[in-house]
């Protein structure tokens, strides 16, 4: 894990001092809300329906135990005892007070955390594969590059007033667990035929009102040129992105209007004129960052664990092992999922007590590391197979062991109209109603892999476009209605969902999902996933299942 050095800590100290001063001036009436609001937003502090919301950055979804413990403390001391993990692997506190914000930022700074650039028209948190450093299938650890980008993008003087927000995601693995095709910049690490490490650079993906899958504008960028090349992309965007219309201001619109090839040429021309040596990191700095993420403390263990195998005689543990335990690159170790999706609970929410427990488990069993996935779950990335049973027991006692990773009850849902001032409809109660219908773990297992993603408005923070079943809340004459899409996927071969039919009222959605599952189970061949059945049959059987019955 990257640990802040004195310079990184100074940055936070200067930032918190600056914000404390800006806050005091606002509270004293020396500056107006119009003057303060952009400053407040650049520190990740929103005013929502019920209260201020603070979005704390979790760079590339990686936490130490001390950091998670501190988040739990802050949630208790300054909020209502819980936090919400988001699809950008950040954490939101939904009930903070402006007058407490400077103190909260000071507490965060103590453990090298902050809320810098988690809002505003700037470069946001860089997300990465949550299995980084633990998975065998990565060309390189994406966290190294995410950390390089974190520093480069922080208080970037040229790119803090972009036409709109800017989101970057990085995967080191061909199995894309970072959804790189649906972000402003997606970066895919690989080696070329000569064995040189490089990025495939995708630009112009995005969800929201006009979803796009990002085209590749450069197949191979040698890794040492990451910063200079990104400067070229951001500069083209900063100069030419639309500023006249909020809904057309993301880079995806610029790329689509120019065409990917023309856009790529603009970037290459700008890059050619750039003094790359001035911008790219020297080898010494890259080596320093790389060393921070180097594996440590792994014991030499046999590839299988007798204790782990024996524990599977307990069917509940066996089910947990089937769904929430993933292969680790080091023999004798495993990646353990911590489910924040207990049916009936708010997806992605985690209480202070749960955070403290997970922090302890991370410290004791996972080399002090915890990860956040964009599916709003947590991960203990380096657990010995011998220890998985003990970890499971502890998680189970805290309602964190629902064996549902990737299954129908592992629902992504934004906070929606219950919290968010932008929403048209609620997302959480829909998620809860669906999850409760499929709460029986045997039923969920029978249904198999099925990603349900729910957004409360067109901004698509719930990623509904890339749900196998996507659900979008809309306001139809003041009532909550929901449009269903099918066949979306955030994987390497990403697809956007297709609309199933007219929007359904709130109280019909869970039943509709039930009908969709029935249709799938009756059509399913050779144990294919819901997504595969849909790709084979198209909409017709699903449309009939829902709309023959809906009125």
């Amino acid at each position, binding site marked *: 894990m990257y640990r802040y050095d004195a310079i990184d800590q100074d940055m936070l100290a200067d930032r918190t001092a600056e914000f404390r001063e800006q806050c005091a001036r606002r509270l004293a009436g020396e500056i107006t809300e119009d003057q303060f609001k952009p400053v407040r937003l650049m520190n990740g502090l929103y005013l929502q329906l019920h209260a201020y919301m603070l979005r704390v950055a979790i760079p590339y979804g990686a936490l130490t135990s001390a950091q998670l413990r501190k988040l739990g403390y802050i949630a208790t001391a300054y909020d209502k005892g819980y936090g919400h993990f988001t699809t950008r692997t950040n954490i939101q506190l939904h009930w903070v007070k402006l007058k407490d914000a400077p103190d909260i930022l000071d507490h965060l700074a103590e453990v090298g955390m902050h809320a810098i650039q988690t809002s505003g028209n700037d470069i946001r948190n860089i997300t990465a594969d949550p299995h980084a450093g633990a998975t065998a299938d990565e060309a390189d650890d994406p966290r190294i590059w995410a950390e390089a980008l974190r520093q480069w993008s922080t208080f970037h003087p040229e790119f803090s*007033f972009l036409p709109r927000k800017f989101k970057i995601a990085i995967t080191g693995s061909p199995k894309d667990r970072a959804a790189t095709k649906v972000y402003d910049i997606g970066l895919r690490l690989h080696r070329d035929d000569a064995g040189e490490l490089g990025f495939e650079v995708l630009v112009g993906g995005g969800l929201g009102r006009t979803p796009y899958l990002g085209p590749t504008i450069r197949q191979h960028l040698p890794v040492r040129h990451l910063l200079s090349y990104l400067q070229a992309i951001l500069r083209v965007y900063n100069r030419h992105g639309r*500023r006249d219309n909020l809904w057309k201001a993301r880079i995806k619109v610029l790329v689509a209007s120019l065409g990917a090839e023309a856009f790529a040429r603009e970037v290459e021309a700008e890059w050619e004129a750039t003094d790359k040596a001035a911008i790219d*990191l020297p080898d010494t700095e890259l080596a320093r960052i790389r060393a921070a993420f180097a594996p440590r403390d792994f014991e030499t263990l046999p590839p299988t664990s007798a204790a782990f195998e024996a524990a599977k005689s307990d069917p509940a543990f066996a089910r947990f092992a089937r769904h929430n335990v993933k292969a680790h690159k080091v023999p004798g170790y495993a990646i353990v999922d911590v489910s924040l999706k207990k049916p009936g609970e708010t997806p992605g929410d985690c209480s202070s007590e749960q955070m403290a427990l997970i922090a302890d488990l991370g410290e004791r069993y996972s080399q002090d590391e915890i990860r956040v996935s964009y599916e709003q779950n947590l991960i203990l990335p380096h657990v010995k197979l011998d220890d998985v049973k003990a970890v499971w027991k502890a998680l189970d006692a805290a309602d964190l062991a629902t064996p549902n990773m990737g299954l129908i009850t592992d629902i992504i849902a934004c906070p929606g109209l219950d919290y968010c001032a932008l929403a048209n409809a609620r997302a959480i109660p829909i998620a809860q109603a669906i999850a409760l219908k499929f709460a029986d773990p045997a039923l969920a297992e029978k249904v198999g892999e099925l990603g349900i993603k729910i957004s409360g408005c067109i901004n698509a923070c719930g990623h509904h476009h890339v749900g196998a079943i996507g659900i979008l809340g809309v306001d139809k004459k003041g009532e909550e209605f929901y449009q269903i899409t099918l066949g979306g996927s955030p994987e390497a071969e990403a697809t956007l969902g297709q609309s199933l039919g007219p929007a359904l009222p709130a109280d019909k959605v869970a039943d509709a999902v039930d009908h969709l599952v029935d249709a799938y189970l009756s059509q399913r061949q050779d144990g294919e996933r819901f997504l595969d059945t849909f790709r084979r049959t198209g909409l017709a059987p699903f449309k009939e299942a829902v709309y023959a019955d809906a009125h």
Partner: protein
Amino acid sequence: MPMLIRWTGQAAVAAEDPFTAVADETPIPRGDVIVSLQRFQAEGERLLGEGRKVGVRIEAHEAVEDIARDLPRLAVVALAIPKFRHGQAYSSARILRERYGYQGEVRAVGDVLREQTRFLARCGVDAFEPADGSTPADLTHVIGRYRHVYQRAADGREPAFVERQAS
């Protein structure tokens, strides 16, 4: 007329402004002037030949490349910021300084607010016409607030990765 504040690299100081910003329809007065890009393209040669200092105002959507050839003869480039969230000026300033090596004054005009001056200064802006009544002391405080920077820009400050190499 808003106050002109210069950033010396160490401090922000109040400055006399010898330039008159001249609108397109207005006759050019005597003395040093700042005119629009369009007007400069039409009358610039003549103005420069009259022995006065000439500056060009670049709107947010305009390209500094269009005055690249003339930069050695321009005393000021004024970058217009229509609303503070319009960030094109930051790119324009860096291109002027880093790509063209422009040595004259780069002035930020328009919706120039205190909190943005730190970023503008890092991009090579060395003069401000603040729209929010900020004083030189205010800007000195804001611009000098951070002890380190993470990335190279136009202000010549050593980025963190260079500081780390030294230690």
